[in-house]
């Protein structure tokens, strides 16, 4: 009917609030579950990871100092924008994961709900994970959670949206900034999430999304002296072991890879919030 030319897409990375091409100039073909061409995605290199870490470090001071209330508002706004893009997400999830459209839509709804759920956690973390401690002396003793810093997230390979949201949102809710390496085979929902983040209120650099191979970029992030923690959710087997070992060289927090990729629909509890929070304790003299 229409003789319109197809608009073939070549997506880019999302680093420091902008959409650069990979420094290497590489792209790779993304296919749907049956092997049909969907789009080209940027194939990030170690130098893109390096730039992303610089961006995340630069954004950390402001994001970690934002009030918990403000952070919650900003994250909730991300969920709002996701809701507006739900149809696009559903289409990408359906194509990438080979789901029916109703199942894909349910997956998207779950992802948005997950994001809202973590947005609600920002101002409750201090109450739940902090404490006033009994001390033997005329002092108050407080403990409170603080963000760990720059977190490198190797996102799940199979669950391209719900899994991604489930590992990214808790990192942000705690006040960390993130460098995310998306699923290699199913990167489109991550790319769209980057577009969502760019058009919401999340400051540039707080989330940096790289599409590419976790096995290639992961070692550079795990060894990087300016990365404070790594989440190995998207890795398995010998690669996960190797990354754990190299992360030890700079004493990073490591959230270990699960034996196999979990079903992300379950209640995550605090299991992904707590690993990226440090406890600071303060002694304060009791006044009169």
């Amino acid at each position, binding site marked *: 009917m229409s003789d319109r030319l197809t608009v073939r897409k070549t997506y880019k990375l999302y680093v420091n609030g902008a959409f650069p091409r990979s420094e290497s100039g590489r792209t790779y073909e993304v296919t749907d579950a049956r092997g049909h061409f969907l789009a080209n995605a940027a194939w990030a290199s170690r130098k893109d990871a*390096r730039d992303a*870490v610089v961006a995340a*470090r630069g954004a950390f001071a402001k994001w970690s100092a934002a009030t918990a209330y403000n952070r919650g508002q900003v994250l909730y706004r991300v969920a709002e924008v996701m809701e507006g893009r739900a149809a696009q997400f559903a289409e990408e999830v359906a194509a990438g994961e080979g789901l029916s459209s109703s199942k894909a839509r349910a997956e998207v709804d779950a992802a948005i709900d997950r994001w809202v759920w973590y947005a609600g956690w920002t101002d409750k973390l201090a109450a739940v994970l902090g404490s006033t401690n009994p001390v033997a002396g005329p002092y108050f003793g407080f403990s409170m959670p603080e963000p760990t810093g720059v977190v490198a997230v190797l996102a799940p390979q199979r669950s391209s949206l719900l899994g991604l949201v489930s590992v990214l949102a808790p990192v942000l809710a705690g006040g960390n900034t993130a460098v995310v390496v998306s699923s290699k085979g199913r990167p489109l929902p991550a790319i769209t999430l980057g577009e969502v983040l760019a058009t919401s209120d999340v400051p540039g650099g707080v989330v940096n999304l790289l599409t590419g191979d976790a096995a290639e970029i992961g070692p*550079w992030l795990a*060894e*990087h*002296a*300016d*990365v404070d923690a790594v989440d190995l959710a998207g890795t398995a087997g010998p690669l996960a072991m190797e990354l754990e070992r*190299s992360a030890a*060289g*700079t004493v990073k927090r490591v959230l270990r890879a699960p034996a196999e990729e979990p079903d992300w629909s379950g209640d995550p509890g605090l299991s992904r919030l707590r690993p990226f929070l440090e406890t600071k304790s303060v002694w304060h003299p009791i006044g009169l």
Partner: protein
Amino acid sequence: MTYVLDPDALAGGEAPVGGPAGTPPDPFADVTRSDAAFRAFLHGLPGVDAVGAQQRTAVLGTRSIKTTAKAWAIDTAISMVDLTTLEGSDTPGKVRSLAAKARRPDPEDPACPAVAAVCVYGDLAGVAKEALAGTGIKVAAVATAFPSGRASRAVKLADVRDAVANGADEIDMVIDRGAFLAGRYLDVYEEIVAVKEACGPAHLKVILETGELVTLDNARRASWLAMLAGGDFIKTSTGKISPAATLPVCLVMLEAVRDFRAATGRQVGVKPAGGIKTTKDAVKHLVLINETVGEDWLSPDWFRLGASSLLNDLLLQRQKLRTGHYSGPDHVSVD
């Protein structure tokens, strides 16, 4: 009232010995015989192809310097740094900590070279001198009413003498941009000659402040003027004005020192300063030297990089090469 051009206007200021103005080296001995002659000479210098300069530097900036060449470039760049602090809030303590960093830029690695000099305001030159005693690191002091240069000549000369008396090995003077832009080239020339005389044994770096001279033609004229007046180095900028050191300006200045040596036999150094923040910038400058004036200038005696934050980036890159993984700002000192 002090007359703006009278070097002896301040009570007790020692009169410079010698004539009213030095004589430029042959074959240019007669170009400063009059204001008109000097203007004719400077305006007779070949015009700068501004687009060509930009294109040339852009092409040279794409050179890929890797592995052993990169390691060499980083070490060379570190040894060329004039580690600088020029803030109103400078304290003796800050200068001493900067001096410590100048001696051992990377405390974890004894093989890391020391920087070329520490650059401070004249009143803190003594502190720097003491902190750097026994090392080969020079003390550079800015003088002549830095950064604006808006003071009478007597005050400027007193400023220079004071910095030299405090132990400065090198003086970074600013030219009178107002006079230069008004076309009073001979005034600017005579001032540099007078400052050079006041420097005594200290090396003189002449800051052209190319950001205020606007055109590359002016940068070429100012370079020649400063070299004819006896400057040992020509320096792009104070670092207080933007744009500061750009690659095209640096190219024009390098061509000027090359042509000047070819004509007179005297070699003059070049110091870009301000705005050079990354290792990549520094390496681009090294490439530019090599391709424009050659290896003779690839030494801290003839080329310096005026910078403060650049050194940390050089150290991070150096650590990356040494350890094989990326380093972070927690692994260099905060200054």
